[in-house]
């Protein structure tokens, strides 16, 4: 009875795995094969050829590319991304200490942004063409295009420099009370929310408008249902799929946004770890971070797809 939906879900899972495989090959090709010599990098200009050759052997750089990729992939699957070049700690350990921080940041941002964005999107769709809709349209349109660091610097200027309400940098070690937690997370979350809310609201509006044009909505209006009831009872259940998609897409934008936000507020998350790794050209660490980002992205998209499948009764009945 459920076989059709199950088959679809299995297909989506397979597709996600295939994508992950291609991504891993791409990332490995970019970071492991092309950029010359990690051994030379690590030892610097003054190293003798013999030293370089020895280190190359130690890193396994003298083996053929395909073999190195296969080895790297096997290790990566078991969670072992090798050792960080700059501080000799296992990459997985470094990631494990930073990942929870980033997840907390992302989670808080989601909690704040999704309800606000849905409200804005649905409201402007209900009152389409009105002044409110047009104002919201221009507002969200502009916010999407504003760089995160402008929002962040303005926030710092207002709340940390002028008003002195919030600290300009995030030191997680200071967290002792709920209030302290709020003070630290307020600005990073606010900055991330701005861009994401705008994007999500626009996509939600489009999804709801799409349904409002359908004939069953006209029918509902003709039989005398109130606008509120039309939207909540008739339209919303039909837009769960597209809205889940919009939410997932916007949240995936988080992964880009955190890179900037974590650096500005000196927040000890995964993205700032990756920026440091890039600055130090610490390839194993970069590879590990990218793969975590990609897995997170694919998981988001997969969840959105599943929502779409599960929320579609036509797929359930067959």
């Amino acid at each position, binding site marked *: 009875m459920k076989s059709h939906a199950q088959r679809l879900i299995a297909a989506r899972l397979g597709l996600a795995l295939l994508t992950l495989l291609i991504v891993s090959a791409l990332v490995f090709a970019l*970071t492991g094969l092309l*950029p010359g010599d990690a051994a030379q990098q690590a030892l610097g200009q003054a190293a003798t050829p013999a030293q370089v050759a020895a280190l190359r052997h130690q890193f396994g750089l003298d083996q053929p590319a395909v073999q190195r990729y296969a080895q790297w992939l096997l290790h990566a699957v078991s969670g072992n991304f090798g050792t960080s070049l700059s501080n000799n700690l296992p990459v997985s350990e470094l990631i494990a200490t930073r990942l929870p921080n980033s997840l907390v940041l992302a989670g808080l941002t989601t909690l704040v942004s999704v309800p606000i964005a849905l409200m804005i999107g649905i409201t402007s769709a209900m009152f389409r063409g009105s002044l409110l809709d047009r104002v919201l349209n221009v507002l969200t349109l502009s916010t999407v295009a504003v760089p995160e660091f402008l929002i962040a610097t303005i926030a710092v200027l207002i709340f940390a420099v002028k008003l002195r309400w919030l600290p300009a940098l995030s030191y997680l070690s200071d967290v002792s009370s709920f209030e302290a937690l709020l003070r630290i997370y307020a600005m990073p979350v606010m900055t991330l929310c701005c861009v994401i809310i705008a994007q999500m609201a626009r996509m939600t509006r489009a999804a709801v408008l799409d349904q409002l044009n359908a004939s069953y909505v006209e029918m509902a209006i003709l039989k005398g249902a109130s606008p509120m009831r039309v939207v909540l009872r008739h339209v919303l259940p039909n837009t769960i799929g597209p809205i889940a998609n919009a939410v997932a897409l916007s949240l995936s*934008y988080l992964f880009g946004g955190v890179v900037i936000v974590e650096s500005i507020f000196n927040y000890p998350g995964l993205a700032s770890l990756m920026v440091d790794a890039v600055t130090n050209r610490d390839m194993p660490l970069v590879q590990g971070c990218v793969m975590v980002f990609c897995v997170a992205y694919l998981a988001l998209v997969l969840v959105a797809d599943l929502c779409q499948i599960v929320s579609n009764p036509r797929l359930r009945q067959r």
Partner: protein
Amino acid sequence: MNRPATHSHAATALYAVSENESPQGDPSLQEPLPEVTAKRRGVLQRLVRRFSVLGLLGLVIVVFWLAVAFLGPLVAPYKGGAITSTEIFGSYSAAHPLGTDYLGRDLLSRVLFGTRYTVGLALASAVLASCIGTFFGLLAAVSGRAVDEVLSRLFDAVISIPSKVLALVVVAAFGSSIPILMGVAAFAYIPGAFRISRSLAVNLMTLEYVQVARARGEGLLYIARVEVLPNMIHPMLADFGLRFVFIVLLLSGLSFLGLGVQPPDADWGSLVRENIGGLALGAPAVLMPAIAIATLTVGVNLLIDNLRRRAGRGQGAA
């Protein structure tokens, strides 16, 4: 205020025309040609009528920044790298309209010189991304299922690496230089252009006139070039504008992290980074470059929104 005076006096304008061989100048000053003037005025009026107030604002902003990108260094009051004031993080003054930066350089000149990098680099990358994406999109649409499937999977994989993260990986691998930045910005946004052009082309391929062309025995190249491409150029142009906005944000984000345009050159993102130390002082040096980015991207967005709205109304779709 430093913009070159445009034909204020008839005499100077005439001289300017003969000396600089510039084709501009009031057409009424050259030989009568009443029809041309009438036609010009008609075009201008139609142009104005086609734009809403906000769309016009967007157009003005975009044209302004494009002009600055070409003329900026010529009209800048000081040389880009020259230290002209003993005061660092100075505020607005007659000698330095936008204040001074962390070394006492004139910020207006820095911004004017930086425009070339921000606008030029993003424009080049956006052209590359759109052209390559459209090419592969067309290829996927007109060729068989196998090619389509392979290309789609590949580009889906690239899209699942967040663009900022992808850019970080490439910069980690190859270092940061102008060609690398251009390449990575283009590469990161090819998949988006591919997706859109592919879906447009696939829809066009089902239309009767394409099937007629096929029945006539036209080659794939002919169908792609003559039947499909001209009909998708308008949506692709709007998409090109969006891609430009994303690329501006990506590149200035990279520069903000210190991984984009390298000193002594500076785009707007680097300017924000250089002067971030002045944030606590509330110096205009931090805000102005960030605001410049925001005006550019918001301007482009307003322009596109206006164009899309018109196009949508033309086709009768919302």
